[in-house]
């Protein structure tokens, strides 16, 4: 591709490619100022996406304030933590598909919780939001062996704690926003099924992979034996579904880490070396991550990330040897995921 065949870019308009999703012209890539503005625009667009989901789904679920002015108790999470498929048609009198809005007046699924079946960052350990690079720093971790079905399983207890920790951070931060915006009154609806289990915390992340009751180590995950849906719920959560419901799955190198003004998030720019989903895209992607992640990403880190639909931040952040393990199940899941709707 020669620069001469490309239309010249407007050096002041870094917003258009961020908004339209069109590739940045080659000539613009050498313009550091343009690329910085473009990265900022991409990050803002991702925040806008996430907030639109929160606003839209909260208003769709919440009617007028209950007469008492009381809000539902905090901690009641939406069932299954999944976004309703946007625009999906409900059967008469009912609401959209799995994990969708409970009856009117109740909390919407936040859509911001990682989809069930997804795994949090590899190698993280310790408190919520921690993300340790697997094998890159500290003691080496075994890469996760996969179940014969191809379903990845966490390599050990540290990873499970990390997954739960990440889910707690994501859930707490986003739930806080949701509850302010107004949970509905019919919280009793959230106490059934997956909602009850989700309300116990974030075990649904690790509980919902298919065949979880059969795989070694399933008994170690909290709440797995308590879920009423059991195998039926497991069947809904799978590597294929994670991939189908992911907005972005890429590998690359951290190019920059920029603290945002409010001090709670970093803007991460990644030089992409490989696209899993979509099949191709920009040479750089930008997203936000909470600063409480420990350790914070560093320039030069080689990572694999997964960002679900409707989210601004990745719920998979793999480094070191874990990248190969995650790459394996993602690549295996991709063909079937293409035929799935989310």
């Amino acid at each position, binding site marked *: 591709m020669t620069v001469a065949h490309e239309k010249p870019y407007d050096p002041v308009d870094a917003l258009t490619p961020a908004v339209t999703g069109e590739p940045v012209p080659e000539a613009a890539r050498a313009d550091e100022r343009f690329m910085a503005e473009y990265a900022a625009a991409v990050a803002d667009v991702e925040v806008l996406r996430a907030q*639109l989901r929160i*606003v839209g789904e909260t*208003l769709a679920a919440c009617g007028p304030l209950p007469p008492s002015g009381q*809000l539902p108790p905090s901690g009641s999470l939406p069932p299954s933590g999944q976004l309703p498929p946007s*625009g999906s048609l409900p059967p008469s009198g009912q609401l959209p598909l799995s994990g969708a809005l409970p009856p009117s007046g109740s909390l919407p699924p936040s859509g911001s919780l990682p989809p069930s079946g997804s795994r949090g960052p590899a190698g993280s350990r310790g408190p919520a939001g921690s993300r340790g690079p697997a094998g890159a720093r500290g003691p080496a971790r075994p890469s996760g062996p996969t179940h014969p079905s191809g379903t990845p399983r966490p390599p050990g207890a540290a990873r499970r704690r990390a997954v739960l920790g990440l889910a707690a951070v994501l859930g707490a931060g986003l739930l*806080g*926003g949701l509850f302010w915006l107004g949970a509905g009154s019919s919280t009793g609806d959230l106490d059934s099924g997956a909602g009850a289990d989700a309300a116990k915390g974030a075990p649904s992340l690790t509980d919902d992979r298919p065949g979880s009751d059969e795989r070694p180590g399933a008994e170690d995950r909290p709440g797995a034996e308590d879920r009423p849906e059991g195998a039926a719920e497991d069947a809904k959560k799978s590597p294929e579904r994670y991939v189908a419901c992911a907005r972005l799955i890429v590998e690359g190198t951290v190019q920059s880490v920029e603290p945002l003004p409010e001090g709670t998030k970093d803007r991460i720019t990644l030089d992409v070396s490989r696209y899993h989903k979509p099949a191709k895209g920009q040479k750089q992607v930008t997203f936000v991550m909470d600063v409480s992640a420990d350790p914070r990403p560093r320039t030069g880190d080689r990572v694999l990330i997964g960002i679900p639909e409707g989210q601004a931040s990745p719920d998979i952040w793999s480094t070191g040897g874990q990248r190969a393990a995650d790459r394996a199940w993602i690549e295996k899941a991709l063909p079937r995921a293409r035929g799935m709707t989310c």
Partner: protein
Amino acid sequence: MRAVLSLGGVPHGELQDGVQHVRLRLLERAARGQEAPREVSAWAAVVASNWAMDYHRARRRQERLGERLAALHPAEPQEDGAESRVLSLAVAQGLDELPDSQRQVVVLRFYADLPVRDIADELGIPEGTVKSRLHAAVRVLRTRLHEGEVR
């Protein structure tokens, strides 16, 4: 679909009417022997957003999202949610400021995740018009977001 309608400013009490309208349109397509839309969710999002715009023209009234969100007060301050609350309110107020045509494309692009081409096809307008509306709308919304972040 309810979220698309809500983002279009349709009051909560009217959402079910909007949903039923979209369902009816789909049934009508089937009754006429038309093929189902290639992407049902995308088609439904467009139909819903058009219904929201028609609703406002007919009623000459639009629910202000910012007011609705601001009215949902927590019983106690939720520190953890403060940042998200500010951003959500900023986005809602920004949407309130937008003309219907810009608001519609923002919702279709960034909530329903439709590509520009699909939005143009479904709305029957040029891609350049979609891009122009998106550009103008996002400039407003970014300003609102940054105001929300800096606070």
